[in-house]
């Protein structure tokens, strides 16, 4: 039971990170109808920018953890958002009305560009940082087994919840959110009613990238390292989360993220660590076959 509780905490934290990435997939799929293959690598770039900002701040002699965290968050979100914007502008917008496979292949190409760009510029080694947030609380002790909730885990979960609140407000209450929902339903009609479709799609990518950047920072804080290859696997898992939750559904993405995080953690805890990625990928296949609309998705009706 104690072991289970501990794994539950770990799984929820991991799931928060996946959920943040999954939102980017689900938003883009909802509006543009394509899988943004490069999104996992945007997450990786976010992690790298956070790492570099962190190193600069440390070398400037800054020690106040909340200040460092805030600056890292803002810088990484801002620059990664520009990455998201640039990727859409360069690789997807010219292909918006091209044939079905073109944006997909362009996205795969972009994914290679981003991951190899950071390999070339920052080197192939794993980049570790010393833990920024230390300490924790023991929730429950029995014998020598302690269920711990570390401060990093609290920070990750709280940041995720706050961002989700802001994001939900953005989508449901603002002009931009309304435009996004309008474009999701019918781009032509939205355009006729005065919605700037191009701008809305760009903003979708910007927001998705900013959330992925937060996920990158959380990953960096939680695991204490980044490397240029981490975007690929994390990207597929987050996509699995988006599909599991029902692609196009924002609460679904978060729910799917948590589910994938929990499944992966429990699988590693009770079965085998080596096959945890196999488990995640198998879930993707099983979900797509038996539940293509996911947990909260709408059934897709094909019109001829």
């Amino acid at each position, binding site marked *: 039971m104690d072991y289970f509780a501990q794994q539950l905490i770990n799984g929820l934290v991991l799931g928060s990170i996946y959920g943040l990435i999954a939102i980017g997939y689900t938003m883009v799929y909802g509006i543009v109808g394509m899988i943004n293959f490069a999104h996992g690598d945007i997450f990786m770039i976010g992690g790298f920018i956070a790492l570099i900002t962190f190193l600069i701040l440390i070398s400037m002699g800054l020690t106040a953890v909340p200040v460092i965290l805030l600056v890292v968050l803002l810088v990484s979100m801002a620059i990664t958002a*520009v990455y998201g914007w640039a990727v859409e502008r360069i690789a997807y917008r010219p*292909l918006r009305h*091209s044939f079905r496979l073109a944006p997909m292949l362009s996205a795969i190409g972009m994914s290679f560009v981003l991951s*190899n760009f950071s390999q070339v510029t920052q080197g192939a080694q794993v980049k570790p940082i010393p833990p920024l947030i230390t300490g924790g609380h023991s929730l429950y002790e029995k014998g020598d087994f302690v269920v711990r909730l570390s401060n990093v885990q609290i920070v990750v979960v709280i940041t995720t919840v706050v961002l989700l609140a802001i994001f939900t407000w953005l989508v449901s209450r603002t002009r931009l959110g309304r435009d996004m929902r309008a474009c999701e339903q019918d781009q032509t009609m939205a355009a006729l009613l005065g919605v700037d479709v191009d701008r809305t799609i760009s903003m979708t990518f910007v927001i998705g990238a900013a959330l992925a950047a937060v996920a990158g920072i959380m990953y960096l804080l939680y695991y204490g390292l980044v490397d240029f290859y981490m975007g690929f696997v994390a990207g*597929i898992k987050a996509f*699995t989360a988006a599909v599991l939750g029902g692609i196009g559904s924002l609460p679904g993405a978060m729910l799917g993220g948590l589910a994938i995080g929990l499944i992966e953690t429990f699988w590693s805890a009770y079965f085998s660590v080596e096959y945890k990625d196999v488990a995640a990928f198998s879930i993707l296949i099983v979900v797509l076959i038996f539940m293509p609309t996911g947990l909260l998705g709408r059934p897709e009706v094909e019109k001829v």
Partner: protein
Amino acid sequence: MGPDVAAPAPNQQPAMRGPGIAFILKKSFISAFVALILFSLMIGIRTLPSESGQLTYITRFPQLAAMVAIVFGGSIIVELLRQWWGPVDTLRIVPPQVQTGLGIARRLLAPMLLIFTFLVPVIFYDQRYILDLAILVLTYVMLGWGLNVVVGLAGLLDLGYVAFYAVGAYSYALLATTFGLGFWECLPLAGLLAACWGVMLGFPVLRLRGDYLAIVTLAFGEIIRLVIINWQSLTGGPNGISGIPRPTFFGIPLTPGENGLAAKLGIDFSPTHRIVFLFYVILALALLTNWVTIRLRRLPIGRAWEALREDEVACRALGINTTTTKLTAFATGAMFGGFAGAFFATRQGFISPESFTFQESALVLAIVVLGGMGSQLGVALSALAMIGGFELFRGFDQYRMLVFGIAMVLLMIWRPRGLIGHRAPSVFLEQSRAISSDLVKEGHG
């Protein structure tokens, strides 16, 4: 087409035509500014591990400035080119003489290329490097043709093709090292096993289409690779399998000594013989793939594939069994992948999971798509261009995938339908006819 309605086309048009220098400069400044933001930390700062193991960093501002300047200059050039050439998808009218000339050249190209390929070992007998490269190119031509059945003919986007390549390679390696079977016995077995895996993948994904299919095949490819890495007792894990037997000339080994082929033929032994032999083996396998594909295209099953590619719903409405059609496409494509894998294993003598990453799948897919999806000649030429292009980056290994990615994006923007060739159904109506109103109630049919 739809959302074009609102695109600010009327505003863009005059700006495109007018040689506004201010416009170009403004656009380039914006690009350079964006590049400055993008590269500020990623290029301007380099993280390095210090003596104590802690990460430190050094600044690289000259490189950052150079990159921003390149983006600025590059975007001026791109804008100028765009004004001169027009929008990306402009059709240029080619004079009819040139068109007929191109037509003749195109018809001659395939036989000429084939003859040249046959002569490669004769011409480049002494250049081991070129022979090795030619074998590599032919392996990818074969993989491209195999994947072409799935992607180009049946229109099923497969991002996990490398899984079948891996199955073929490991089948041969395991059968040969465990049971001592020879290459020629294992080759059909490897193809058969890969085809079974193709059907196994095909069954669950029958209902999926488009992007979902792509992701599931990608996941499948990764699962196979992860299982190979982790199932150490069978596959040797990350260390791979070494000591895979070399191919024999139908039982006669290509070794020095009494029993070798050279001794039997009464000529001096040379290690090049094996390379030349491998070259002709892969050439024969590739041509077999090509021949089977071309024949299948003329059979009902091939036509069903093409119908499936063009419109799945219409295809089903016409009474084509989409289940068997999809499964045969997967199985056929996988079988050729398995053949190529077995050849890869015997050529290398050593295989490890590193050879079967997603990048390989993407590379083969890029070959098929750039070749024009469905065009056999196009696939061969784009394999040559891709692998040849990769070789240019020998020594700059870390830049290779970067350039590959950039090339993929640019080619998709420039020629989304592929560089060479295009996909056209093998059968189509020669002309559209108005049917007599006696036959059709509504009038025109």
